[in-house]
Protein backbone atom coordinates (compact mmCIF):
# COMPACT_ATOMS: atom_id res chain seq x y z
CA UNK A 1 0.00 0.00 0.00
CA UNK A 2 1.40 3.33 -1.06
CA UNK A 3 -0.51 6.41 0.11
CA UNK A 4 -1.78 8.45 -2.79
CA UNK A 5 0.12 11.57 -1.80
CA UNK A 6 3.37 9.61 -1.69
CA UNK A 7 2.79 8.47 -5.25
CA UNK A 8 2.11 12.06 -6.27
CA UNK A 9 5.29 13.38 -4.69
CA UNK A 10 7.21 10.46 -6.19
CA UNK A 11 5.90 11.46 -9.61
CA UNK A 12 7.16 15.01 -9.07
CA UNK A 13 10.53 13.60 -8.04
CA UNK A 14 10.72 11.41 -11.13
CA UNK A 15 9.75 14.32 -13.35
CA UNK A 16 12.46 16.45 -11.83
CA UNK A 17 15.00 14.00 -13.22
CA UNK A 18 13.28 12.86 -16.38
CA UNK A 19 11.89 16.17 -17.63
CA UNK A 20 15.24 17.93 -18.14
CA UNK A 21 16.59 14.86 -19.90
CA UNK A 22 13.53 14.79 -22.13
CA UNK A 23 13.79 18.53 -22.77
CA UNK A 24 17.38 18.05 -23.83
CA UNK A 25 16.51 15.11 -26.04
CA UNK A 26 13.87 17.29 -27.67
CA UNK A 27 16.55 19.84 -28.55
CA UNK A 28 18.76 17.31 -30.28
CA UNK A 29 19.24 18.20 -33.90
CA UNK A 30 18.45 14.72 -35.21
CA UNK A 31 19.07 15.63 -38.84
CA UNK A 32 22.74 16.33 -38.12
CA UNK A 33 23.02 14.09 -35.10
CA UNK A 34 25.29 11.52 -36.71
CA UNK A 35 27.57 14.15 -38.23
CA UNK A 36 27.77 16.01 -34.94
CA UNK A 37 28.72 13.04 -32.84
CA UNK A 38 31.15 11.56 -35.35
CA UNK A 39 33.21 14.69 -35.80
CA UNK A 40 36.88 14.09 -35.14
CA UNK A 41 36.86 15.93 -31.84
CA UNK A 42 33.68 14.21 -30.63
CA UNK A 43 34.95 10.74 -31.37
CA UNK A 44 38.29 11.54 -29.77
CA UNK A 45 36.52 12.81 -26.65
CA UNK A 46 34.19 9.81 -26.43
CA UNK A 47 37.02 7.31 -26.87
CA UNK A 48 39.16 9.15 -24.34
CA UNK A 49 36.29 9.18 -21.87
CA UNK A 50 35.64 5.46 -22.24
CA UNK A 51 39.32 4.63 -22.03
CA UNK A 52 40.11 6.78 -19.01
CA UNK A 53 36.93 5.76 -17.22
CA UNK A 54 37.77 2.09 -17.71
CA UNK A 55 41.32 2.56 -16.38
CA UNK A 56 40.08 4.72 -13.50
CA UNK A 57 37.46 2.18 -12.55
CA UNK A 58 40.12 -0.52 -12.57
CA UNK A 59 42.30 1.66 -10.37
CA UNK A 60 39.32 2.24 -8.07
CA UNK A 61 38.94 -1.53 -7.76
CA UNK A 62 42.62 -2.12 -7.14
CA UNK A 63 42.83 0.35 -4.27
CA UNK A 64 39.17 0.57 -3.31
CA UNK A 65 38.60 -3.10 -2.50
CA UNK A 66 41.43 -3.21 0.06
CA UNK A 67 40.31 0.14 1.43
CA UNK A 68 36.73 -1.02 1.84
CA UNK A 69 37.94 -4.22 3.50
CA UNK A 70 40.10 -2.33 5.96
CA UNK A 71 37.35 0.17 6.76
CA UNK A 72 34.81 -2.62 7.25
CA UNK A 73 36.95 -4.99 9.31
CA UNK A 74 40.05 -3.41 10.75
CA UNK A 75 39.95 -1.88 14.19
CA UNK A 76 42.43 0.83 15.01
CA UNK A 77 42.41 4.31 16.45
CA UNK A 78 41.46 6.88 13.86
CA UNK A 79 39.59 4.55 11.55
CA UNK A 80 36.45 6.67 11.80
CA UNK A 81 38.45 9.71 10.82
CA UNK A 82 39.98 7.79 7.93
CA UNK A 83 36.53 6.72 6.75
CA UNK A 84 35.28 10.31 6.83
CA UNK A 85 38.30 11.53 4.90
CA UNK A 86 38.04 8.84 2.25
CA UNK A 87 34.41 9.72 1.68
CA UNK A 88 35.05 13.47 1.49
CA UNK A 89 35.18 13.57 -2.34
CA UNK A 90 31.52 12.52 -2.29
CA UNK A 91 30.49 15.90 -0.94
CA UNK A 92 33.36 17.98 -2.24
CA UNK A 93 32.86 20.14 -5.34
CA UNK A 94 35.03 18.35 -7.92
CA UNK A 95 36.82 21.58 -8.72
CA UNK A 96 38.12 21.59 -5.15
CA UNK A 97 39.33 18.05 -5.73
CA UNK A 98 41.10 19.33 -8.82
CA UNK A 99 42.84 22.05 -6.85
CA UNK A 100 43.87 19.53 -4.19
CA UNK A 101 45.27 17.19 -6.84
CA UNK A 102 47.10 20.09 -8.42
CA UNK A 103 48.86 20.83 -5.15
CA UNK A 104 49.75 17.16 -4.80
CA UNK A 105 50.70 15.95 -8.26
CA UNK A 106 51.24 19.27 -10.02
CA UNK A 107 54.75 20.25 -11.08
CA UNK A 108 55.17 22.25 -7.89
CA UNK A 109 52.99 19.97 -5.80
CA UNK A 110 53.76 17.86 -2.78
CA UNK A 111 54.75 14.80 -4.82
CA UNK A 112 54.97 16.42 -8.23
CA UNK A 113 58.47 17.76 -7.78
CA UNK A 114 59.89 14.39 -6.79
CA UNK A 115 57.93 12.72 -9.58
CA UNK A 116 59.33 15.20 -12.08
CA UNK A 117 62.84 14.48 -10.86
CA UNK A 118 62.09 10.81 -11.47
CA UNK A 119 61.05 11.72 -14.98
CA UNK A 120 57.35 11.23 -14.40
CA UNK A 121 55.15 14.09 -15.42
CA UNK A 122 51.49 13.90 -14.57
CA UNK A 123 50.28 17.41 -15.33
CA UNK A 124 48.50 17.71 -18.69
CA UNK A 125 48.73 13.99 -19.33
CA UNK A 126 46.03 11.36 -19.63
CA UNK A 127 47.32 10.05 -16.31
CA UNK A 128 46.10 13.28 -14.75
CA UNK A 129 42.60 12.61 -16.10
CA UNK A 130 42.71 9.12 -14.63
CA UNK A 131 43.87 10.48 -11.27
CA UNK A 132 41.09 13.07 -11.22
CA UNK A 133 38.45 10.49 -12.11
CA UNK A 134 39.77 8.00 -9.57
CA UNK A 135 39.78 10.69 -6.90
CA UNK A 136 36.11 11.52 -7.35
CA UNK A 137 34.90 7.97 -8.10
CA UNK A 138 36.75 6.01 -5.42
CA UNK A 139 34.33 6.80 -2.56
CA UNK A 140 31.41 5.44 -4.57
CA UNK A 141 33.08 2.04 -4.75
CA UNK A 142 34.34 2.11 -1.18
CA UNK A 143 31.03 3.11 0.35
CA UNK A 144 28.93 0.48 -1.37
CA UNK A 145 31.50 -2.28 -0.91
CA UNK A 146 32.14 -1.46 2.73
CA UNK A 147 28.41 -1.71 3.43
CA UNK A 148 28.19 -5.04 1.66
CA UNK A 149 31.18 -6.46 3.54
CA UNK A 150 29.73 -5.37 6.87
CA UNK A 151 26.38 -6.93 6.05
CA UNK A 152 27.99 -10.19 4.94
CA UNK A 153 29.83 -10.56 8.25
CA UNK A 154 32.79 -12.85 8.84
CA UNK A 155 31.17 -16.21 9.49
CA UNK A 156 32.03 -17.71 6.13
CA UNK A 157 35.54 -16.29 6.24
CA UNK A 158 36.14 -18.04 9.55
CA UNK A 159 34.90 -21.34 8.11
CA UNK A 160 37.16 -20.92 5.10
CA UNK A 161 40.16 -20.22 7.34
CA UNK A 162 39.56 -23.33 9.44
CA UNK A 163 39.42 -25.29 6.19
CA UNK A 164 43.00 -24.21 5.57
CA UNK A 165 42.47 -21.27 3.22
CA UNK A 166 45.03 -18.49 3.51
CA UNK A 167 43.69 -14.97 4.04
CA UNK A 168 44.26 -14.08 0.38
CA UNK A 169 42.45 -17.23 -0.76
CA UNK A 170 39.60 -16.39 1.58
CA UNK A 171 39.38 -12.90 0.12
CA UNK A 172 39.13 -14.03 -3.48
CA UNK A 173 37.15 -17.24 -3.05
CA UNK A 174 34.77 -16.32 -0.24
CA UNK A 175 34.66 -12.67 0.84
CA UNK A 176 34.47 -11.03 -2.57
CA UNK A 177 32.13 -13.56 -4.23
CA UNK A 178 29.74 -13.12 -1.31
CA UNK A 179 29.63 -9.34 -1.75
CA UNK A 180 29.48 -9.57 -5.54
CA UNK A 181 26.28 -7.50 -5.89
CA UNK A 182 27.74 -4.69 -3.79
CA UNK A 183 31.01 -4.90 -5.67
CA UNK A 184 29.24 -4.76 -9.01
CA UNK A 185 27.03 -1.81 -8.17
CA UNK A 186 29.98 0.03 -6.65
CA UNK A 187 32.02 -0.59 -9.78
CA UNK A 188 29.24 0.64 -12.05
CA UNK A 189 28.65 3.73 -9.94
CA UNK A 190 32.35 4.48 -10.08
CA UNK A 191 32.46 4.03 -13.83
CA UNK A 192 29.47 6.30 -14.29
CA UNK A 193 31.03 8.89 -12.01
CA UNK A 194 34.30 8.71 -13.99
CA UNK A 195 32.39 9.18 -17.21
CA UNK A 196 30.69 12.31 -15.92
CA UNK A 197 33.74 13.77 -14.22
CA UNK A 198 34.35 17.39 -15.21
CA UNK A 199 35.40 19.81 -12.48
CA UNK A 200 38.48 18.05 -11.17
CA UNK A 201 39.63 17.20 -14.68
CA UNK A 202 39.39 20.73 -16.06
CA UNK A 203 41.11 22.15 -13.00
CA UNK A 204 43.87 19.57 -12.75
CA UNK A 205 44.42 17.92 -16.09
CA UNK A 206 43.81 20.68 -18.60
CA UNK A 207 42.05 20.20 -21.89
CA UNK A 208 43.64 18.87 -25.07
CA UNK A 209 41.94 16.85 -27.73
CA UNK A 210 42.76 13.15 -27.51
CA UNK A 211 44.88 13.61 -24.39
CA UNK A 212 42.87 15.21 -21.62
CA UNK A 213 39.68 16.51 -23.22
CA UNK A 214 37.06 14.02 -22.12
CA UNK A 215 33.47 14.08 -23.27
CA UNK A 216 32.19 16.43 -20.55
CA UNK A 217 35.00 18.89 -21.32
CA UNK A 218 34.25 18.63 -25.02
CA UNK A 219 30.59 19.34 -24.35
CA UNK A 220 31.48 22.35 -22.25
CA UNK A 221 33.75 23.67 -24.99
CA UNK A 222 31.38 22.96 -27.87
CA UNK A 223 28.73 24.92 -26.01
CA UNK A 224 30.75 28.07 -26.83
CA UNK A 225 30.52 27.73 -30.56
CA UNK A 226 28.27 24.83 -31.50
CA UNK A 227 25.37 24.31 -29.10
CA UNK A 228 23.95 21.63 -31.41
CA UNK A 229 27.07 19.55 -31.03
CA UNK A 230 27.02 20.08 -27.25
CA UNK A 231 23.44 18.86 -27.02
CA UNK A 232 24.10 15.87 -29.28
CA UNK A 233 27.13 14.84 -27.22
CA UNK A 234 25.19 15.33 -23.99
CA UNK A 235 22.61 12.96 -25.35
CA UNK A 236 25.32 10.41 -26.11
CA UNK A 237 26.64 10.71 -22.56
CA UNK A 238 23.16 10.18 -21.12
CA UNK A 239 22.64 7.18 -23.41
CA UNK A 240 25.92 5.58 -22.34
CA UNK A 241 25.08 6.13 -18.67
CA UNK A 242 21.59 4.66 -19.03
CA UNK A 243 23.02 1.70 -20.93
CA UNK A 244 25.65 0.93 -18.29
CA UNK A 245 23.23 1.21 -15.38
CA UNK A 246 20.58 -0.79 -17.24
CA UNK A 247 22.99 -3.62 -18.07
CA UNK A 248 24.08 -3.81 -14.46
CA UNK A 249 20.56 -3.99 -13.15
CA UNK A 250 19.84 -6.79 -15.53
CA UNK A 251 22.91 -8.78 -14.59
CA UNK A 252 22.16 -8.23 -10.90
CA UNK A 253 18.60 -9.43 -11.15
CA UNK A 254 19.90 -12.49 -12.99
CA UNK A 255 21.93 -13.44 -9.95
Amino acid at each position, binding site marked *: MIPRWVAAVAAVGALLVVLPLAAMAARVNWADFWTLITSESSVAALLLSLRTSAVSTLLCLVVGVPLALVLARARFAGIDLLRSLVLVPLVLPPVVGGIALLYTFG*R*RGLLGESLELAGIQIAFSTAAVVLAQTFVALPFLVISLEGAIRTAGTRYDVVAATLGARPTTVLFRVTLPLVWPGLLSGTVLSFARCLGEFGATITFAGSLQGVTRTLPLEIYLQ*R*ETDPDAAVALSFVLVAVAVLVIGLTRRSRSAL
Partner: protein
Amino acid sequence: MTGYTHRGRASARIVAAGAVGLLAAGALTACGTGPGTGGTADADDAADRTLTVYAAASLTSTFEQIAEEFEATHDGVDVELSFAGSSDLVAQIQQGAPADVFASADTANMDKIVTDDLQAGTPTDFASNTLMIAVPPGNPAGVASLAGLAGDDVHLVVCAPEVPCGAATERVEEAAGLTFSPVSEEQSVTDVLNKVITGEADAGLVYVTDVRGAGDKVEGIEFPESESAVNVYPIAALERSAEPELAQEFVDAVLGQEGQQVLGDAGFAAP
Protein backbone atom coordinates in the same frame (compact mmCIF):
# COMPACT_ATOMS: atom_id res chain seq x y z
CA MET B 1 54.89 49.04 -22.29
CA THR B 2 57.38 47.29 -20.11
CA GLY B 3 58.05 46.71 -16.46
CA TYR B 4 54.56 46.37 -15.11
CA THR B 5 53.94 47.36 -11.58
CA HIS B 6 50.73 46.32 -9.97
CA ARG B 7 48.98 47.26 -6.83
CA GLY B 8 45.57 47.97 -5.53
CA ARG B 9 42.37 46.27 -4.60
CA ALA B 10 41.25 45.26 -8.07
CA SER B 11 44.43 43.44 -8.96
CA ALA B 12 44.35 41.57 -5.66
CA ARG B 13 40.90 40.32 -6.54
CA ILE B 14 41.93 39.10 -9.93
CA VAL B 15 44.82 37.23 -8.39
CA ALA B 16 42.46 35.57 -5.97
CA ALA B 17 40.21 34.67 -8.83
CA GLY B 18 43.13 33.19 -10.68
CA ALA B 19 44.26 31.16 -7.72
CA VAL B 20 41.02 29.36 -7.12
CA GLY B 21 39.82 29.33 -10.67
CA LEU B 22 36.23 28.77 -11.63
CA LEU B 23 34.93 28.53 -8.12
CA ALA B 24 36.12 31.98 -7.14
CA ALA B 25 34.97 33.41 -10.45
CA GLY B 26 31.51 32.13 -9.67
CA ALA B 27 31.64 33.64 -6.19
CA LEU B 28 32.65 37.04 -7.53
CA THR B 29 29.84 36.93 -10.02
CA ALA B 30 27.43 36.16 -7.28
CA CYS B 31 28.71 39.12 -5.26
CA GLY B 32 28.05 41.45 -8.10
CA THR B 33 24.52 40.30 -8.72
CA GLY B 34 23.00 39.91 -5.30
CA PRO B 35 19.44 41.01 -6.03
CA GLY B 36 18.09 43.88 -3.96
CA THR B 37 21.28 44.34 -2.02
CA GLY B 38 23.18 44.78 -5.26
CA GLY B 39 25.42 47.52 -6.44
CA THR B 40 28.95 47.96 -5.39
CA ALA B 41 29.19 50.73 -2.84
CA ASP B 42 27.34 53.61 -1.26
CA ALA B 43 24.09 52.18 -2.53
CA ASP B 44 21.40 54.34 -1.03
CA ASP B 45 18.72 52.22 0.59
CA ALA B 46 16.20 54.60 -0.94
CA ALA B 47 17.50 53.81 -4.43
CA ASP B 48 14.49 53.61 -6.64
CA ARG B 49 16.26 53.12 -9.96
CA THR B 50 18.27 50.06 -10.77
CA LEU B 51 20.52 49.59 -13.76
CA THR B 52 21.57 46.05 -14.67
CA VAL B 53 24.86 45.75 -16.54
CA TYR B 54 26.01 42.47 -18.12
CA ALA B 55 29.74 42.53 -18.70
CA ALA B 56 32.40 40.08 -19.80
CA ALA B 57 34.27 38.47 -16.93
CA SER B 58 37.55 40.17 -17.93
CA LEU B 59 35.93 43.52 -17.14
CA THR B 60 35.17 42.66 -13.52
CA SER B 61 37.51 45.02 -11.69
CA THR B 62 37.24 47.92 -14.11
CA PHE B 63 33.45 47.87 -14.33
CA GLU B 64 33.14 47.65 -10.56
CA GLN B 65 35.14 50.83 -10.36
CA ILE B 66 33.20 52.57 -13.12
CA ALA B 67 29.87 51.53 -11.55
CA GLU B 68 30.99 52.92 -8.22
CA GLU B 69 31.76 56.28 -9.74
CA PHE B 70 28.50 56.17 -11.73
CA GLU B 71 26.48 55.63 -8.56
CA ALA B 72 28.34 58.47 -6.87
CA THR B 73 27.29 60.90 -9.58
CA HIS B 74 23.75 59.54 -10.02
CA ASP B 75 21.70 59.91 -6.85
CA GLY B 76 19.33 57.06 -6.13
CA VAL B 77 20.73 54.84 -8.85
CA ASP B 78 21.82 51.34 -8.06
CA VAL B 79 24.04 49.54 -10.60
CA GLU B 80 23.84 45.76 -10.58
CA LEU B 81 26.72 44.04 -12.32
CA SER B 82 26.63 40.53 -13.74
CA PHE B 83 29.92 39.09 -14.91
CA ALA B 84 30.27 35.92 -16.98
CA GLY B 85 31.70 34.66 -20.23
CA SER B 86 30.41 36.77 -23.11
CA SER B 87 28.68 33.83 -24.80
CA ASP B 88 26.88 32.90 -21.57
CA LEU B 89 25.69 36.48 -21.18
CA VAL B 90 24.45 36.57 -24.77
CA ALA B 91 22.52 33.35 -24.21
CA GLN B 92 20.90 34.83 -21.11
CA ILE B 93 19.98 38.06 -22.89
CA GLN B 94 18.51 36.04 -25.75
CA GLN B 95 16.40 34.13 -23.22
CA GLY B 96 15.01 37.45 -21.96
CA ALA B 97 17.23 38.28 -19.00
CA PRO B 98 16.51 41.82 -17.70
CA ALA B 99 19.75 43.52 -18.75
CA ASP B 100 20.05 47.21 -19.55
CA VAL B 101 23.62 47.28 -20.83
CA PHE B 102 25.84 44.62 -22.38
CA ALA B 103 29.63 44.88 -22.62
CA SER B 104 31.17 42.07 -24.64
CA ALA B 105 34.75 40.84 -24.76
CA ASP B 106 34.58 40.42 -28.52
CA THR B 107 32.65 41.59 -31.56
CA ALA B 108 31.44 38.08 -32.41
CA ASN B 109 29.22 37.88 -29.36
CA MET B 110 27.98 41.43 -29.80
CA ASP B 111 27.13 40.49 -33.40
CA LYS B 112 24.72 37.86 -32.07
CA ILE B 113 22.89 40.62 -30.18
CA VAL B 114 22.79 42.75 -33.30
CA THR B 115 21.54 39.81 -35.38
CA ASP B 116 18.63 39.40 -32.97
CA ASP B 117 18.16 43.20 -32.94
CA LEU B 118 18.29 43.36 -29.15
CA GLN B 119 20.46 46.46 -28.95
CA ALA B 120 19.40 50.10 -28.72
CA GLY B 121 21.49 52.13 -31.13
CA THR B 122 24.79 50.96 -32.53
CA PRO B 123 27.30 49.08 -30.34
CA THR B 124 30.42 51.13 -29.69
CA ASP B 125 33.92 49.79 -29.21
CA PHE B 126 35.24 51.03 -25.88
CA ALA B 127 38.49 49.15 -25.34
CA SER B 128 40.82 46.65 -26.86
CA ASN B 129 43.08 44.03 -25.49
CA THR B 130 46.02 42.19 -26.95
CA LEU B 131 47.75 38.96 -26.10
CA MET B 132 50.86 38.71 -24.04
CA ILE B 133 53.05 35.82 -22.96
CA ALA B 134 52.66 35.09 -19.27
CA VAL B 135 55.38 33.12 -17.49
CA PRO B 136 55.81 32.17 -13.85
CA PRO B 137 58.02 34.50 -11.81
CA GLY B 138 61.64 34.01 -12.72
CA ASN B 139 60.67 32.58 -16.11
CA PRO B 140 61.98 29.06 -15.32
CA ALA B 141 61.78 27.88 -18.92
CA GLY B 142 63.63 30.97 -20.16
CA VAL B 143 61.03 32.02 -22.69
CA ALA B 144 62.15 35.11 -24.58
CA SER B 145 59.91 35.41 -27.60
CA LEU B 146 56.86 34.02 -29.30
CA ALA B 147 59.06 31.69 -31.34
CA GLY B 148 60.36 30.26 -28.09
CA LEU B 149 56.91 28.86 -27.40
CA ALA B 150 56.90 26.62 -30.43
CA GLY B 151 59.32 24.04 -29.03
CA ASP B 152 58.31 20.83 -27.34
CA ASP B 153 60.41 21.58 -24.30
CA VAL B 154 58.16 24.41 -23.19
CA HIS B 155 54.90 23.54 -21.48
CA LEU B 156 52.62 25.99 -23.23
CA VAL B 157 49.00 26.48 -22.29
CA VAL B 158 46.62 28.44 -24.50
CA CYS B 159 42.90 29.02 -24.88
CA ALA B 160 40.93 26.58 -27.01
CA PRO B 161 40.18 27.95 -30.51
CA GLU B 162 36.47 27.82 -29.68
CA VAL B 163 36.75 30.69 -27.19
CA PRO B 164 37.78 34.30 -28.10
CA CYS B 165 41.25 34.26 -26.59
CA GLY B 166 41.91 31.01 -28.44
CA ALA B 167 40.80 32.52 -31.70
CA ALA B 168 43.21 35.38 -31.08
CA THR B 169 45.96 32.88 -30.34
CA GLU B 170 45.36 31.17 -33.68
CA ARG B 171 45.60 34.50 -35.49
CA VAL B 172 48.88 35.25 -33.77
CA GLU B 173 50.23 31.83 -34.68
CA GLU B 174 49.34 32.42 -38.30
CA ALA B 175 50.82 35.90 -38.39
CA ALA B 176 54.06 34.63 -36.87
CA GLY B 177 54.13 31.53 -39.07
CA LEU B 178 54.50 29.32 -36.05
CA THR B 179 52.81 26.11 -34.96
CA PHE B 180 52.38 25.67 -31.23
CA SER B 181 51.96 22.31 -29.59
CA PRO B 182 50.33 23.31 -26.34
CA VAL B 183 49.95 20.80 -23.53
CA SER B 184 46.46 22.11 -22.91
CA GLU B 185 43.82 24.21 -24.62
CA GLU B 186 41.85 25.74 -21.82
CA GLN B 187 38.27 26.81 -21.68
CA SER B 188 38.95 30.35 -20.56
CA VAL B 189 41.77 32.81 -20.25
CA THR B 190 41.41 32.58 -16.44
CA ASP B 191 42.23 28.88 -16.65
CA VAL B 192 45.32 29.63 -18.74
CA LEU B 193 46.48 32.27 -16.29
CA ASN B 194 45.86 29.91 -13.40
CA LYS B 195 48.04 27.22 -14.96
CA VAL B 196 50.87 29.73 -15.27
CA ILE B 197 50.42 31.08 -11.74
CA THR B 198 50.56 27.59 -10.25
CA GLY B 199 53.64 26.80 -12.30
CA GLU B 200 52.00 23.89 -14.09
CA ALA B 201 52.69 25.67 -17.36
CA ASP B 202 55.97 27.28 -18.39
CA ALA B 203 54.11 29.84 -20.44
CA GLY B 204 50.62 30.86 -21.42
CA LEU B 205 49.07 33.24 -23.87
CA VAL B 206 46.74 35.62 -22.07
CA TYR B 207 45.58 39.22 -22.38
CA VAL B 208 47.69 42.14 -21.29
CA THR B 209 45.02 42.97 -18.70
CA ASP B 210 45.32 39.50 -17.22
CA VAL B 211 49.05 39.86 -16.75
CA ARG B 212 48.61 43.24 -15.16
CA GLY B 213 45.81 41.97 -12.95
CA ALA B 214 47.86 39.05 -11.74
CA GLY B 215 50.40 41.33 -10.08
CA ASP B 216 53.72 39.69 -9.33
CA LYS B 217 52.31 36.20 -9.64
CA VAL B 218 53.33 36.17 -13.29
CA GLU B 219 55.70 38.01 -15.56
CA GLY B 220 54.57 39.39 -18.89
CA ILE B 221 56.51 39.25 -22.15
CA GLU B 222 55.35 41.39 -25.06
CA PHE B 223 55.65 40.30 -28.66
CA PRO B 224 55.10 42.31 -31.85
CA GLU B 225 52.80 39.73 -33.47
CA SER B 226 50.14 40.56 -30.88
CA GLU B 227 49.11 43.45 -33.16
CA SER B 228 47.59 40.93 -35.54
CA ALA B 229 45.04 39.85 -32.99
CA VAL B 230 43.59 42.86 -31.31
CA ASN B 231 40.53 41.96 -29.36
CA VAL B 232 37.94 44.72 -29.41
CA TYR B 233 35.39 45.21 -26.63
CA PRO B 234 32.04 46.67 -27.77
CA ILE B 235 29.31 47.98 -25.48
CA ALA B 236 25.63 48.70 -26.16
CA ALA B 237 22.52 49.73 -24.31
CA LEU B 238 19.84 47.12 -24.78
CA GLU B 239 16.55 47.61 -26.50
CA ARG B 240 14.34 46.10 -23.83
CA SER B 241 15.76 48.29 -21.05
CA ALA B 242 13.26 49.91 -18.71
CA GLU B 243 15.79 52.69 -18.16
CA PRO B 244 16.94 53.54 -21.69
CA GLU B 245 18.32 56.96 -20.77
CA LEU B 246 20.20 55.71 -17.75
CA ALA B 247 21.57 52.81 -19.81
CA GLN B 248 22.89 55.24 -22.41
CA GLU B 249 24.41 57.37 -19.64
CA PHE B 250 26.30 54.34 -18.34
CA VAL B 251 27.57 53.57 -21.85
CA ASP B 252 28.73 57.18 -22.10
CA ALA B 253 30.45 56.90 -18.75
CA VAL B 254 32.43 53.91 -19.98
CA LEU B 255 33.37 55.77 -23.15
CA GLY B 256 34.09 58.99 -21.26
CA GLN B 257 37.38 60.18 -19.92
CA GLU B 258 37.10 58.68 -16.46
CA GLY B 259 35.94 55.32 -17.76
CA GLN B 260 38.76 55.22 -20.26
CA GLN B 261 41.20 56.16 -17.49
CA VAL B 262 40.08 53.20 -15.40
CA LEU B 263 40.33 50.83 -18.35
CA GLY B 264 43.71 52.16 -19.33
CA ASP B 265 45.04 51.71 -15.81
CA ALA B 266 44.00 48.06 -16.00
CA GLY B 267 45.98 47.57 -19.19
CA PHE B 268 43.27 47.95 -21.80
CA ALA B 269 44.21 49.85 -24.89
CA ALA B 270 42.00 52.27 -26.77
CA PRO B 271 39.76 50.54 -29.33
